[in-house]
């Protein structure tokens, strides 16, 4: 991957395409889970990769590339959500009321959990998505979001408590 990165930095568009291929699911899914809208998530992912292409020289390694993509994606989405609070930011209570009871069937439960995440604040959405989609530990999440680690832990605990409470209420 570092070789592909070096070639992409040298201007090889095919090598850049390989990097996109390797990271597109992660970037798109981060945006999708935080925004809840596939079209918007795709636009965001495209913008992130456009930004990557313009900043390839600043990418030092494949690890740095993954960190950079997660950081830029989450910050872009958080900024977007803060500028347009009506997009999908609703309180967890409202969200839970909208979705009704949580079924015990797995596909439905997964959908309900994703809806519950969309009811969280932008920062909490990012924390939960990075934790359970990207499998980052709290320290890496803190670095990615430029956030104190105690704030990350607090977001995680409160979000899980709220989701557990909602699921428990509906079961």
């Amino acid at each position, binding site marked *: 991957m570092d070789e592909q990165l070096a070639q992409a930095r040298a201007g090889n*568009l095919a090598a*850049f*395409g390989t990097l*996109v*291929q390797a990271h*597109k*699911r*992660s970037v*798109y*899914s981060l945006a*999708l*889970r935080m925004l809840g809208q*596939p079209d918007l*998530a*795709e636009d965001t*992912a*495209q913008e992130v*990769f*456009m930004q990557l*292409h313009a900043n390839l020289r600043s990418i030092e390694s494949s690890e740095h590339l993954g960190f950079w993509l997660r950081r830029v994606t989450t910050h872009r989405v958080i900024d977007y959500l803060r500028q347009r609070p009506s997009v999908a930011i609703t309180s967890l209570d409202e969200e839970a009321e909208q979705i009704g009871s949580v079924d015990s069937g*797995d596909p439905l*439960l*997964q*959908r309900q*959990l*994703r809806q519950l*995440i969309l009811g969280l604040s932008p920062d909490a959405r990012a924390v*939960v*998505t990075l934790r*359970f*989609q990207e*499998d980052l530990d709290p320290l890496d999440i803190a670095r990615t979001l430029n956030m104190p680690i105690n704030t990350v832990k607090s977001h995680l605990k409160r979000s*899980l408590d709220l*989701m*557990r409470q909602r*699921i428990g209420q509906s079961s």
Partner: protein
Amino acid sequence: MTDDLESKLRDALRPAAPRENFEERLMARIAAAQRDPVKRRGAFTPTPATWWFSAAMAATVILAVGVQHHRVDQENREKGLEARRQVMQALRVTNDKLDLAYRAVRDQSGAIGGDPGA
């Protein structure tokens, strides 16, 4: 329960794939942006050269204001010193005149006081 919820969250947040032509659309956008970099930027975004030019202009303005302020300050200080010098000069002249007057009065008093004994 915690582990159960966390594993369910991992299932719910499994990465999803964008539409199939994602790369094609992206490459088309990059190619278009490379053909027309101004259009890609859309709004004005400063290049390093324009940033440095702006910073240099700002520094020049700040420096000019500082120099002007220093000059006005210096002029005021010189005016103050000149005024002080003039006051001191006036006091000195007044003092000399008073001294002369005092001597004249004293000499005159001495002359008057000396007559009876003559």
